[in-house]
């Protein structure tokens, strides 16, 4: 009877020590380290697909399937996004009611800057995507914002991506706790399972790229944002990054978020960051 309490005390102490150690480990694992994530993320894909060159991942399913690659090469001679590209160029250079244009809102007048989006805005303390910046530009000049999921927005980003083709994605996560939190939030969203099918973004785009989901070949998450916006034959039209996220959510039978909500902005931030160094290839064409 006497020994029991002391024994219990001892085991409690052991338990406490174990817990403390575990907490320490968990703490270490949760300190965001984007640079290490990027390395691990890209290593994962290059190891999984040793035959695919790093810069080829931006070609999505085409980099995973030889036959599709040949079809795509042929399609690229006469790409289906051509009309959107032309419309985007025209929209981009057409002045607003007050005489200003989109070019006045962007560094380098909007040409060749796609690789820098999304960026972390230190003033706002949030991630700003290209689509968001375009609508803010419209609003600042007294124009109504465009829908984030329609062809007009996609045409604009198509043009901006086109002028940036080949430039390596160059996303920065500044050493700011809010930026790291946004990055971490995006990462969490990417790996969290949701919806009736209980899929995370990673279930398809990390675990199973190259596999078929019905007739389609899943694209690797690495470089997936570099090809956006995309013309999808399935949609008979263009898709923005927002549209891609919304559709991904609804396809796994999850409730999509509002386009350009904080979480979508953060997940785009994470996904773009880990694709750093891969060339911009948008606008893309997908089946």
């Amino acid at each position, binding site marked *: 009877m006497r020994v029991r309490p002391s024994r219990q005390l001892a085991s409690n102490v052991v338990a406490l020590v174990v817990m403390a150690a575990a907490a320490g480990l968990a703490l270490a694992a949760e300190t965001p380290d984007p640079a290490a994530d990027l390395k691990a993320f890209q290593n994962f894909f290059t190891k999984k697909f040793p035959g695919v060159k790093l810069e080829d991942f931006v070609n999505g399913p085409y980099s995973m399937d030889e036959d599709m690659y040949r079809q795509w090469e042929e399609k690229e*001679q*006469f790409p*289906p996004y*051509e*009309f959107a590209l*032309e419309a985007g160029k025209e929209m981009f250079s057409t002045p607003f009611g007050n005489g200003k244009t989109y070019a006045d809102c962007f560094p380098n007048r909007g040409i060749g800057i796609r690789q820098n989006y999304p960026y972390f805005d230190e003033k706002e303390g949030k991630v700003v995507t290209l689509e968001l910046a375009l609508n803010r530009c419209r609003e600042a000049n007294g124009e109504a914002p465009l829908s984030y999921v329609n062809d007009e927005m996609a045409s604009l980003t198509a043009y901006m991506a086109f002028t940036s083709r080949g430039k390596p994605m160059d996303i920065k996560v500044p050493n700011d706790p809010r930026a790291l939190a946004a990055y971490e939030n995006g990462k969490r969203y990417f790996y969290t399972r949701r919806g009736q099918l209980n899929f995370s973004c990673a279930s398809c785009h990390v675990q199973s790229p190259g596999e078929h989901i019905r007739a389609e070949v899943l694209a690797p998450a690495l470089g997936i944002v570099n090809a956006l916006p995309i013309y999808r034959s399935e949609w*008979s*039209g263009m898709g923005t990054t927002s549209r891609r996220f919304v559709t991904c959510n609804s396809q796994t039978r999850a409730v999509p978020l509002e386009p350009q909500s904080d979480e979508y902005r953060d997940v785009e931030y994470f996904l773009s960051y880990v694709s750093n160094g891969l060339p911009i290839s948008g606008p893309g064409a997908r089946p």
Partner: protein
Amino acid sequence: MTSTIRVRATLNDDITEVQVLIQHPMDTGLVKNANGEIIPAHFIQQLSFQHNGRTVFLADWGPAVSKDPYVRFRFKGANKGDELNIRWVDNTGATDTTTAKIQ
């Protein structure tokens, strides 16, 4: 507005390969818009390609052809620098034409 027709015609040996992309909604008349109203049928009915006054390709289309249709075909008997006239007519009577040089 720029032409709704994008065309590329290239000669290899004796064979001219023609690729065309046409911007057209190709509405079937069976689809409703967001307000539940039918989008009226609007589709290309005839597409023709002429080389030196000879029709080398003629298509009678209906509503089953996809939006922004793409066509590719080959024909013999053309020379580099020849002109190829392309024309479509849709069910509303609208039409567009363009001329391409064979390269």
